[in-house]
């Protein structure tokens, strides 16, 4: 692990910032459930108490898909803090999710 990885929870964001996350799903599929579970686990570990997760079911609100350019299901979108980040898949690889959310810098 690099030096950057050691202080990764802080990275460039102040601790008090609230993270707004959106998880796009299409119905209660196995992949959706798995992704949600993985997300909760990661957030609880790394962003305890300062995150909100909004789950959007595109089967119910299909018009929301184009706004965030959603293509794949499931997709996690980090609305806040900016910039917007997208992670697709079941979020099974925690390391990659952390990198994707800027909670951890890219492995050198």
């Amino acid at each position: 692990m690099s030096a950057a990885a050691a202080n990764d929870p802080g990275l460039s964001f102040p601790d008090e910032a609230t993270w707004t996350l959106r998880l796009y799903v299409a119905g209660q599929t196995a992949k959706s459930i798995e992704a949600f579970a993985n997300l909760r686990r990661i957030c609880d570990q790394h962003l305890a108490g300062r995150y909100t997760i909004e789950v959007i079911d595109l089967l119910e609100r299909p018009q929301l898909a184009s706004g965030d350019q959603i293509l794949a299901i499931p997709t996690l979108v980090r609305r806040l803090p900016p910039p917007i980040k997208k992670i697709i898949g079941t979020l099974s690889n925690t390391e990659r999710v952390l990198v994707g959310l800027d909670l951890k810098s890219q492995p050198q």
Partner: protein
Amino acid sequence: MAPPTTIGPTIAVTLPKSPTGIQGLDEITGGGFPQGRPTLVCGGAGSGKTLLATQFLVRGALDFDEAGVFMSFEEPLHDLAQNVASLGYDLPALIAGKKLAMDYVRVERSEIEETGDYDLEALFVRLAYAIDSVGAKRVVLDTLESLFGGLSNAGILRAELRRLFGWLKDRGVTAVITGERGGAGSLTRQGLDEYVSDCVILLDHRVHDQVSTRRLRIVKYRGTSHGTNEYPFLIDASGLSVLPVTSLSLDHAAPTERISSGIGRLDTMLGGKGYYLGSSVLVTGAAGTGKSSMAAHFVDAACRHGERCLFFAFEESPRQLLRNMRSIGIDLAASVGRDVLRFEAARPTLVGLEQHLSTLHRAVREFKPTVVVLDPITSLLSVGAGSEVEALLLRMVDFLKSQGITGFFTSLTQSGVSLEQSVVGISSLMDTWLLLRDLEANGERTRGLYVIKARGLAHSNQIREFVLTDHGVDLLDVSVSAAGVLTGTARAAREAHERAAVFARQHDVDRQQRELMRKRTVLAARMAALQADLEIMDEELRRLPEQERQREALLEDERDVIARSRLADAPGNGAGESPRGDRR
């Protein structure tokens, strides 16, 4: 479901089709794309895939009352709208009128982190949402392959694409999917043709001698017969149009009406009345032999006759032509003013061959001429290879004939190239072929006009000398002498010589006449003198007996006097005789 369309007249419709509304494409596909199935349109960059797809949707919405969905993976919507606005397609209006739904799917790999399993259900959701929002019957996905650039898991992508095509079929929408042309041997870079088995259309964009020609080919079309050729197509101000005119049927009407060539003596050479209406006329000749002048004559006469003429000038600007023709006494400006004559001037190399054909088609459709002049067709050779030009001219001639338009073509023959070669094999298409040839003799160049052929016309076999005067073209009889055909000053000299001979002969006759007259006068005088002598003689003859009688009487008297003086016997007959005898 719409009834099967029957646009292609000769191809039986075997499955329901969605007409594309693209000129020519419906004819070669026998009615359009397969209805309710996906069609793959592949081609290289800039080959017109997106335009074809857009036109499919717009025409569907405007002409066939079928709403459409455009899902773009490459261009933002306002860019797309701008691109086709120049073609007169108002996409925002169609969207507002619920005839079209558009969705831009942006896939940027750098913004997307992938972890774990996923599918493209959101794409399906978006597509379904768009389809449902307008009740779409047509869907365009342009270009699906962008997904491969944005997502790294090709395995998932391929599975999802297969599912997508199945899904589109289930929805019963007629879909057009565009794909980037792949390397050698493959139609698309990502092998999309594996998934689309119903109809695959390949667009090609080839450059030959710096002139590009677009071509379209139907690679496959399951369940229907279709044209297999490469069809040239065009993208111009009215969008995309395919020119499927290689299957020529020879069933033109053959009018018997005639149209004057504008040159009186040429009409006479062509059996008295000129060309056939709706026929094609070719004038070949070397540079400066007067081809354009003949064309101008023809156009001028036709315009006066009330025909509408379209003049394609490939070498001169209209103004230049007008000026040059005025110098030989042909004023075409008046006809232009009356809008019975229109010039279309363009450098042949400006656009590709197909564009020329399209220009001709469009101009003919717009202007509705009865006479079309192409001057000269040989300059098209600078645009394409000989065989292509020949094919183009074939189609041009055919098109004009099918419209009953009289075509007048001029062709420049190269010096040193045989006549047959230089007319690029199109002479056989022509009904009338006139040849203007340089006749060189005695250090002088003159022009001779030959009628090489004139189908259906009893034409003259004689060569005429072709003279450009300030009142137009004149055809003169050539002098045929032992030395050959005489033209120009040689002919003039010969004519002068002949005039001198005639004069001399005339002079001679006069002289002889005078001589004879003189002789006659002399004879007449002599005859008059003789006559006078004769009369004198006659007079003498007549007077001779009378004189004799008078003398007798006188002598008698004398004798009487003597007798009386001699106191002779009584006068009597006997007495009278004896003295007489005495005297002797």
